């Protein structure tokens, strides 16, 4: 009798335990499901992010016009779909969908082919130049090289470098106010042929009209009333009589192209112009020489909303400040690109004193050029300029939105906006 009762008790408890056991197993299964969801969702996200990086690599390393995308590409245990859409010239949108198991995630990235004019400073090589204490670099800064820092230089804009940041010693603490990141090497190169075509299409081309491939020198003096006075010299012969015309009549699309020649410029610009000097194989050409102050009719720092003047100086050789010991302090409002050199101050050591060169815009070049001689002040314990010109540089923030007409663009696309979609709240039971 008692044995039967015991048997019933054992069977009863075994049955109850079986029910609890099932609940425990179910709970465990749901717990695993829960983490499986997070893992799968994260994996899908990482696949989507990887797709963006793979596409950017295709575009920036192999083919800037790559729009093939990926379709159900197996990747990391899942699949990847990616499409590339051209929004406007130089701006693309990449939509990457990562799939893992039953889950998918989408990342949408907007990338832009920046204009070189969006940089305050852009150099191919640093050589043995160090950004040092007291240096303040305004605007975006890029180097296709190490960024070498001695002491505490200040970089006010985003800094990008193809190699990294090199500190002189443990006491060097550069200040990157907008941070820094690695970016693909993109040399300072522009397409002279394309710019010449655009200049022929709606701008102005100065060239040797005798077709003897002689060097053409052009003087351009801009007036604050929107006109420009110009004269031309071919093969070193006397300049032609000066002609004054509205800038918009001389180059309706804003592009002035000097083929195998040099430009001398100064004055006050009321308008939007990019001046290009090509060297076409000759070392004596491809230079833009800034004889004296070249400024906008409205100060872009004081009145950025009112100023609609833009000046781009694009030299296949270099932008130069010719030697003039009587010039004194002067101002440059422009973004300057020197494909083979930098911003060169000719014979800077021969100036009788040190002067200031106030630049509002950008300096883009192959290398950093020296512009002054320095001496050591033992009282202030710092170097000070003795002969030549020192920079007082401000980036023209208007160039973030608009740049001088036809100013060269970079080859690579940079990510400018990264969207990972709206919040998704998973449902569990």
């Amino acid at each position, binding site marked *: 009798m008692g044995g039967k009762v015991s048997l019933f008790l054992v069977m009863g408890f075994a049955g109850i335990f079986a029910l*609890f056991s099932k609940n425990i197993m179910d*709970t465990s299964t749901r717990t695993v499901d829960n983490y499986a969801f997070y893992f799968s969702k994260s994996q899908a996200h990482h696949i989507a992010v990887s797709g963006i990086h793979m596409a950017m690599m295709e575009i920036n390393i192999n083919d800037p016009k790559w729009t093939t995308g990926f379709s159900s590409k197996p990747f990391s245990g899942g699949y990847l779909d990616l499409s590339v859409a051209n929004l406007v010239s130089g701006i693309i949108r990449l939509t990457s969908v990562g799939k893992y198991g039953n889950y998918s995630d989408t990342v949408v990235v907007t990338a832009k082919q920046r204009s070189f004019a969006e940089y305050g400073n852009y150099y191919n090589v640093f050589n043995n130049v160090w950004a040092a204490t007291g240096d303040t670099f305004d605007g*975006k800064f890029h180097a296709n090289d190490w960024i070498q820092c001695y002491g505490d230089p200040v970089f006010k804009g985003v800094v990008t470098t193809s190699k990294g940041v090199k500190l002189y010693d443990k006491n060097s603490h550069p200040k*990157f106010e*907008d*941070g820094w990141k690695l970016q693909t090497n993109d040399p300072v190169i522009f397409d002279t042929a394309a710019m010449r075509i655009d200049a022929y299409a709606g701008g102005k081309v100065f060239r040797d009209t005798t077709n003897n491939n002689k060097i053409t020198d052009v003087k351009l003096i801009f007036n604050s009333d929107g006109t420009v006075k110009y004269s031309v010299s071919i093969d070193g012969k006397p300049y032609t009589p000066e002609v004054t015309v509205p800038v918009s009549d001389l180059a309706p699309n804003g592009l002035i192209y000097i083929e195998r020649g040099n430009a001398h410029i100064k004055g006050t610009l009321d308008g939007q112009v990019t001046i290009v000097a090509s060297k076409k194989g000759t070392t004596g050409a491809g230079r833009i020489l800034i004889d004296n102050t070249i400024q906008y009719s409205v100060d872009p720092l004081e009145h950025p909303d009112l100023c609609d003047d833009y000046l781009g100086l694009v030299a296949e050789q270099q932008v130069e400040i010719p030697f003039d010991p009587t010039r004194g302090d002067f101002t440059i409002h422009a973004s300057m690109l020197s494909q083979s050199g930098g911003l060169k101050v000719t014979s800077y050591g021969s100036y009788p004193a040190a002067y200031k060169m106030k630049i509002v815009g950008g300096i883009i070049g192959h290398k950093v050029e020296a512009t002054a001689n320095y001496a050591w002040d033992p009282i202030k314990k710092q170097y000070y300029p003795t002969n030549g010109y020192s920079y007082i540089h401000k980036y023209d923030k208007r160039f973030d939105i608009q740049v001088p007409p036809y100013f060269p663009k970079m080859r690579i696309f940079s990510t400018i906006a990264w969207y990972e979609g709206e919040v998704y709240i*998973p449902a569990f039971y």
Partner: protein
Amino acid sequence: MGFTTIIDILGATIIGGIVLMNLLNMNQNVVQSESMFGHDKSLQVDVVILATIMDRDFGLLGYCGDYTKMDSTAIIYGDSVSIRFLADTDNNGIFDTLYYFTSDTAALSHTPNPRDRILYRQLNSNPPFVVANNITEFNLKYLDTFSNEQVIPIDLNKIVNYVRIAFKVEDPYAYNEEYTEALWRRLTVTANNLTKK
């Protein structure tokens, strides 16, 4: 015969009692285990939901559908337990403001767990949304480009390149006061959109 029956009954009672004690003990263990498994599961669900929401929200830090509006700073205010930042959550080209903050422990004083608090997520001026009501730790750190920790409070004048997020949730109720817990930590959230365009 009568003596043998008594022995049988006593023996069966003792054996049955031992079996019964074991079964009762096992039953208690089963109930405790199921309780803990159940609480664990709930906590893990909470963590996953919270992590999913925060992953996405912080990925949007500084993002705007109209990229010309984006800048290098987007954190309006940030300290170790709260953050208010700009993010275009609906991708309509207009910045929204997201605000994450926690209550004090008094808000959940009716629960046995003395440490739990409420984590709120507030979008613009909408009523705060309870993201989690069992937060026991919510910690934010702000790092610069060299991963140096920035001094709090953070505002729009301070550059932040990374945000480090960690939180822990605990059960508000517990079997035998053994509160189950789950921890989530994201070492760095790269601020993809915190660079000047």
